[in-house]
């Protein structure tokens, strides 16, 4: 019952940090989509780019998150503010699933559909926007979904460099050995992750080609 009491008492701060958390995840996911989808398209269409692009994204993924925050600290402009730094790191992590799924989705488009489209005289751009991307959309979206769910968890660590978000509660709770505080960060984060997972999963099913 202690937890509920704590939540009621601190609901304003919880809301504030949840919004901050959402902001970090939202901006970084949006950036990852804006960068990742074009990179995925490039590596699907020009096989030469496939290995360097996916390889780099893979390597970034293997860097431990705290270390990545540390590495980015000396970068000018970015390192100047904790939230910029957190957003950049989260964006880098979110890139891999977005790029990989864009690549897979586009490569998965039935070759007879592409041949028919090309034979009908569609330009490459028309083929991309009218055929390839719509057909790959559900696969791309499932990549975005993975990126969001991972980001929600990772963003809690951003509090370690002072970027705010629900990690604040968790780190404070760890320092004070206070479970209520830890739960005040962990529960909203879990709810965020689950609802993002559910919502995007639903959208994905709607867009899945029959």
């Amino acid at each position: 019952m202690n937890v509920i009491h704590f939540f009621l008492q601190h609901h304003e701060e919880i809301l504030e940090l949840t919004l901050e958390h959402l902001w970090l995840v939202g901006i970084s996911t949006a950036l990852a989509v804006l960068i990742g989808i074009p990179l995925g398209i490039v590596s699907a269409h020009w096989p030469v780019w496939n290995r360097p692009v996916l390889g780099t994204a893979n390597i970034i993924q293997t860097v431990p998150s705290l270390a990545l925050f540390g590495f980015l600290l000396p970068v000018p402009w970015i390192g100047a503010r904790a939230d910029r730094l957190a957003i950049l790191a989260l964006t880098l992590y979110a890139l891999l699933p977005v790029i990989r799924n864009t690549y897979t989705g586009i490569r998965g488009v039935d070759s007879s559909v592409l041949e028919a489209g090309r034979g009908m005289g569609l330009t490459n751009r028309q083929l991309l926007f009218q055929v390839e991307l719509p057909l790959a959309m559900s696969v791309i979206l499932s990549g975005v979904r993975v990126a969001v769910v991972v980001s929600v968890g990772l963003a809690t660590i951003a509090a370690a460099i002072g970027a705010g978000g629900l990690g604040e509660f968790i780190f404070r709770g760890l320092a004070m050995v206070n479970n209520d505080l830890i739960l005040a960060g962990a529960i909203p984060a879990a709810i965020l992750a689950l609802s993002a997972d559910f919502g995007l999963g639903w959208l994905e099913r709607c867009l899945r080609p029959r």
Partner: protein
Amino acid sequence: MEPTSPNQLVIEFREVLYVLPNAKPLLQDLNLKVFSSETLVLLGRSGSGKTTTLKLINRLLTPSSGEVRVNGEPTAGSDVIRLRRSIGYVIQDVGLFPHFSVERNIGLVPRIDGWPAERIRARVEELLHLVGLNPEIASRYPHQLSGGQRQRVGVARSLAADPTILLMDEPFGALDAITRDQLQREFLALQRRLKKTVVFVTHDLREALRLGSRIALMEAGRLVTVLSPQDFLRSSDPLAASYVQACGEGLDSAANRGRS
């Protein structure tokens, strides 16, 4: 499009060679003429070069040497998008866009060309009638259609922008025997009305005899001979004879059913 009088030269292959890097030629020494309103059938086994020949016409492939001319112009110099839009293309796997309704599939090229919506709708209805489909299926999606219906939609789609040339790559190859028979019959009726210049790829001699005005026999990347269906049956060419023999009895009627 220039007006086409009978027997006007429409497609011409001149000394065409097609090679992939580090491989033996898929097609060599090809000289072939296709005339207006005829159905030229490319007959051959898999790997004989018939699909390669077809794809050289709408420049899905470009010749390694030699020249392909469509309506007197070398395809190499022409605007490839315009060239393809002036040529209907039907393939065995149909390749309908699974995320588009039948209407949008058929109306895609007209829509890209900026036709008004009303005219597209009328054209789609007209084409569905033409290929023997109920216009009510216009709002359905490809996965809701049978194989025969899908290929009919494929044919309708290829005719949408009223091309003078139609390329068909084993269009009825994946259908069951009864549906295939029906579609072949409809193709003949359609061709009698539309008088397109058709290049039709098949490995089935019966289909070739039934649909073709002339049959171009291909083997291992070379054109062996070009014959009328009647002459094909009587040909002394060993390869043609082996086709006839492999096919067994009753071919005469197949060769004559198409004409009349």
